[in-house]
């Protein structure tokens, strides 16, 4: 290569870049980082009211992070998001948003419309949590809650991701929601957030789940029941089981910590267009606390405790499935999908009327519990010999 050619090449590249400027070049301090949003129905039109929690960063040696709430209205989500520039001055930056809170009022009308933009746009990320607010307006959650961390939305994300050791709320990300929405034989289940007043302060409380039929909210399940729903869905990762045990006429409460849980969902074909579900739950627990003096550690006690645990688990799971079958007729467990996977031809005949036949679906639950350890103490506390 001659020097003239290199010069020419350098000129072309330089010129191209200078003329081009920097289209997508975007300084970090020139955008407002959105931590989370709340979507409400706009009462005056069929549009939305979008409330965004924006991270405020004050620079300097001792950087401080705080949040600010802005509310905008728009015909569509995108419209509202762009209108926010008029209020905040900078463009909103969505990639780091952690939560979308949707008011139950809006959810009743369907949330598929809201989610589309979030899934489609390249600046937003579809792995953000959807949460349904039990308060009338989703905005209130961001507006009124007192936060423990600096940013409410980040706090909510932590709350949801730490549900693994509580199991009182399901988690649902936007793309999972869409996947379920498009799939057959399964309905979405979304966590619920509420405000709870403690010492005069309203605090966030993520507890329970919202049951959907298609993309419309049909009802709520509270936190204790969600645990058993998660058992049925094989999504339990932790949490506690509280069992009552009687010994010598004295009642004791034993807290069992769930270590491992494995649920097998087995569809059984009954007829050409009828199927049943067999749920086999296997759970590994540990005695975490004995409130009372019952000896559940010795062999006999262990046997008894296991029996009680298995029985109550079976009962609770059955109850909650019944309840959902009766009240909501929404197959949040994905039983239909299991049938489709196993018996595709039978499913073809059942799919049309699945909503009704789900209500009638026979579900047999069998539970097996294994008590693995009793934490640090080898026997219960004995009072005064």
């Amino acid at each position, binding site marked *: 290569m001659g020097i003239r050619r290199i010069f020419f090449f350098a000129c072309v590249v330089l010129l191209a870049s200078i003329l081009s400027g920097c289209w997508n070049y*975007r300084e970090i*301090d020139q955008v407002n980082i959105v931590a989370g949003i709340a979507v409400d129905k706009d009462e005056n039109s069929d549009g939305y009211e979008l409330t965004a929690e924006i991270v405020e*960063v*004050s620079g300097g040696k001792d950087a401080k992070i705080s949040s600010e709430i802005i509310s905008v209205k728009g015909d569509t989500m995108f419209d509202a998001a762009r209108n926010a520039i008029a209020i905040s001055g900078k463009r909103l930056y969505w990639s780091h948003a952690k939560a979308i809170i949707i008011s139950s009022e809006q959810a009743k009308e369907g949330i598929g419309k809201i989610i589309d933009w979030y899934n489609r746009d390249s600046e937003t990320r579809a792995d953000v949590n959807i949460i349904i607010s039990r308060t009338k307006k989703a905005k209130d959650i961001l507006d009124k809650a007192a936060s423990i961390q600096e940013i409410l939305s980040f706090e909510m994300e932590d709350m949801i991701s730490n549900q693994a050791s509580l199991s009182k709320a399901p988690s649902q990300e936007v793309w999972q929601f869409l996947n379920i929405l498009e799939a057959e034989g399964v309905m979405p289940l979304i966590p619920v957030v509420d405000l709870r007043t403690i010492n005069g302060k309203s605090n966030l409380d993520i507890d329970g789940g919202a049951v959907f039929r298609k993309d419309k909210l049909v009802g709520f399940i509270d936190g204790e029941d969600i645990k058993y729903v998660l058992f049925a869905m094989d999504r339990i990762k932790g949490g506690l089981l509280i069992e009552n045990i009687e010994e010598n006429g004295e009642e004791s409460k034993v807290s069992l910590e769930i270590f491992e849980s494995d649920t097998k969902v087995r569809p059984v074909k009954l007829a050409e267009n009828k199927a049943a579900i067999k749920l086999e739950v296997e759970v590994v627990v540990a005695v975490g606390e004995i409130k009372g003096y019952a000896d559940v550690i010795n062999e006999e006690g262990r046997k008894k405790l296991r029996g009680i645990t298995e029985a109550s688990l079976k009962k609770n799971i059955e109850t909650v499935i019944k309840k959902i079958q009766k009240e909501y007729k929404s197959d949040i467990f994905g039983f239909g999908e299991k049938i489709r996977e196993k018996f595709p031809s039978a499913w073809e005949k059942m799919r049309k009327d699945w909503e009704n036949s789900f209500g009638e679906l026979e579900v047999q639950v069998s539970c097996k519990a294994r008590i693995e350890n009793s934490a640090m103490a080898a026997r219960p506390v004995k009072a005064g010999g």
Partner: protein
Amino acid sequence: MFKRLNKKNAGKDRAVEKSGLTKSLDENVKLFQEVLKDDETLVIRRLNNKYLKSARFALIYFEGMIKPDIINENIIRPLIQQNLKEEILENNLVEELRQKIIAASDVFETRDIYQVCGALAYGDTVLIVDGFDSVLVINSKGWHTRGIEEPLSEKIVRGPREGFNESIMMNLSLIRRKIKNPGLKIQFREIGVQTRTKVCICYLEGTACEKIVEELRHRLDKIDIDGILDSGYIQELIRDEPFSPFDTIGITERPDIAAAKLLEGRIALLVDGSPFALTLPFLFIEYFQTNEDYYNNYFFGSVNRLLRVAAGLLSIAVPAIYVALVTFHQEMIPTPLLLSISAARQGVPFPTIVEALLMLTVFELLREAGTRIPTTVGQAVSIVGALVLGQAAVDARFVSAPIVIIAAFTGITALLSIKSQGAAIFFRLVFLFLGSMIGVFGIIFSFLGLIIHLMSLRSFGVPYMLNISSLKGQDVKDTAIRAPWWHMRLRPPLIAAKNMERQKKAN
């Protein structure tokens, strides 16, 4: 090129013709006075033999270049005191003197005044004998050189500590001491019309590739320059790919490295007056190899080399990656980190790319200042660099703290493979430039460009990236890692094509 070569030769011939020596001593002395006039260090010492009055001599040398003891004891004393018989005169006196009288290690007879002048300038003494048109050039070099010291540019913890100095003969002796095989060939030539610098080609016959040696001779012959003051001149004059920022010829200040390269079949080129020997062909991976890798435990050596390779890549890419992430791909940054970068950027007036360029320039300034300034004021520079430019600039919100960290990191990593610094600076800018234009894609494109460039380079016909992308057992053993010695049975291919085996397959 050939034309120029001819012209040069022609010029040389004319000089000889014009100043032809005669048989008269006086005329010859006059001739030398004429040729070397206005040089007041020229000493002409006339003398006679004690016994044979007709034997008249003249000694010519440059003051300061010679060792007076040699001239006094080994030349003048025998010339004066030896009993020269008449019959000697009838024989060839010059030949007799050379063989029997003068007690110096290297004496030769010549008629070429061009050569004689060169020898004079190199510290030899010229003996003119009356009645002969040839002179004797006697080795009486006595100029002073630096001793053998530990090289400053290539520090090591373990391994031989001697380094080359400015005397080519001393350097050769250092190499010769390591390789005693008579296959070690040493060939001289003179380059530079004015400086007439001695250049020496060293190679191991039977191991080095003849074609490469031939090519090197050819390229050296084509050089036509007035002076060679350092091996750098030659390095640039004979290199392949003159526009590449990468070196295609290696340099070293250590005889052990030069010997190791010779053993691998490479050629060493020593240049008088320069403590830096050239080694060729030079491959990209040699930037990251140090002699210590081979002396230390292979595991430690491999770790160090991997670190160096990684540092080399990082020093090119890190500023660009930072700029691309912060200005294009914020979604890639974990949220807590994003928030702290954002906090650091608050109130900083410059765009990130300008900040990056600024801090990199500042670092290069400090580095250059650090190498140029006398050691006594070095302290001041480090204080200014560390405190004023780092701490104060951040505190004053002139630049953000992350970019200072990035610049410092880049600087440190670049210093790890110091020989590739020129190329690193160039490609760092290219990466930064494209990275700030189209983000990470720009960086990938620049990386692609870097690789294409490296892959298309050749050093004396050997691909520059030899073995880099190979997965064959013997090939990877001395690239990014340093395999144990008992595994490195073969020499690098293509370079030592003739004699691949380094060890017999005994183990």
